[in-house]
């Protein structure tokens, strides 16, 4: 029966997968077959309904089970030693921005709450607070880094009087070393911006300075 032949091709028809000749023939059939027209309409609705099906909400939090599997040590700060950074410069720069931003944010939090900032500051940040920005260029990452350093410096300076002189001397010496390393790395990156190794080294060095400042700011706050 002709109608049966075309009925079996109706999904291909609504998906636009028939040849031009087949489409012409089927459409000619549709003009005289109300049942096939109805079926074709229904199939379109089915496909649209399927495409609009919603996501699910888990009945329980599945994360603890996942975390148990991926962090065998179950440390408070799950930071596994993997290949340090992906060999991709834009992603590297993006990560540097996030680290710098989060570090600056933790100090701001410390100032507001006048409390010691725990090292696991990343966990305190809700998922929705992640900056939804386009992947930044290295230059933008450096600007954000500079802003975070300035924030941390301000906090440290305000609490400097509470640190003993030996601690301040060690801190300044270490910061000078890191500053020198950052400057060297920045110069090297500017001369060879696409060098993955240099970008990786710069990001690591910048992070080292952020970490050092963050620890110092926390220490200054703890001395109150």
């Amino acid at each position: 029966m002709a109608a049966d032949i075309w009925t079996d091709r109706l999904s291909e028809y609504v998906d636009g997968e028939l040849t031009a000749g087949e489409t012409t023939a089927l459409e000619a059939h549709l003009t005289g077959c109300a049942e096939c027209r109805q079926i074709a309409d229904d199939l379109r609705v089915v496909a649209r309904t399927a495409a609009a099906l919603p996501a699910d909400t888990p009945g329980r939090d599945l994360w603890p089970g996942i975390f148990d599997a991926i962090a065998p040590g179950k440390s408070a700060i799950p930071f596994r030693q993997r290949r340090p950074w992906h060999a991709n410069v834009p992603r590297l720069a993006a990560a540097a921005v996030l680290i710098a931003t989060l570090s600056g944010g933790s100090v701001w939090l410390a100032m507001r709450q006048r409390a010691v900032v725990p090292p696991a500051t990343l966990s305190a940040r809700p998922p929705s607070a992640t900056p939804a920005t386009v992947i930044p260029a290295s230059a933008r990452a450096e600007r954000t880094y500079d802003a975070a350093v300035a924030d941390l410096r301000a906090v440290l300076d305000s609490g400097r009087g509470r640190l003993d002189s030996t601690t301040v001397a060690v801190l300044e010496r270490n910061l000078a070393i890191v500053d020198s390393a950052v400057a060297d790395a920045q110069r090297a990156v500017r001369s060879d911006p696409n060098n993955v190794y240099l970008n990786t080294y710069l990001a690591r060095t910048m992070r080292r300075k952020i970490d050092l400042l963050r620890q110092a700011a926390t220490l200054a706050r703890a001395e109150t």
Partner: protein
Amino acid sequence: MITPTRGARALKRIPARDRSDSDAVEVALATSGDAHAFERLYRKHVGRILALTRRMLSPDDAEDATQDVFIRAWQKLETFRGESAFGTWLHRIAVNVCLGRRAQLGLARERYYPDDAPLELAAHPDSGHALERMDFESALQQLPDGARQVFVLHDVEGYRHEEIADMLGTVTGTSKSQLHRARMALRRHLDR
């Protein structure tokens, strides 16, 4: 196995908010070993992955399979090159997990119903009018495994017949046939 670079149509089905470039930051951090960053990726994508595993497998198996998907994603993070959206890459892993589980359970091919099977197969013979009142998702769960698999991959996830045939180790003609039968069965359960 399935590569993460194809399936552009699948990407279209992922809401724009799930394709934001902020994933790239979290992925970079997670790749360096930051489990908190990976947890943020999990919380962002778990809903769609859970829906996929539930539709491909069963409600009873979905949560366990979803955990498996994220564990495998963590293990494979270093292979993610950013050539597709993270969500698309994750969905590919989820499809692989589902297909692997189905193969383990012996559900893969023998439960495909033959080409000449009646379209009414999706309706349980004892359910009668009750099935007509079931919503679309419930009707989907009543489909035979092979038809449901193809329907979910094509109409819900947006994969092409060529991709589905590759995933399932079959031919495009079979994929098209299964899709049509699934749609024909489901059209009786539309909310009209």
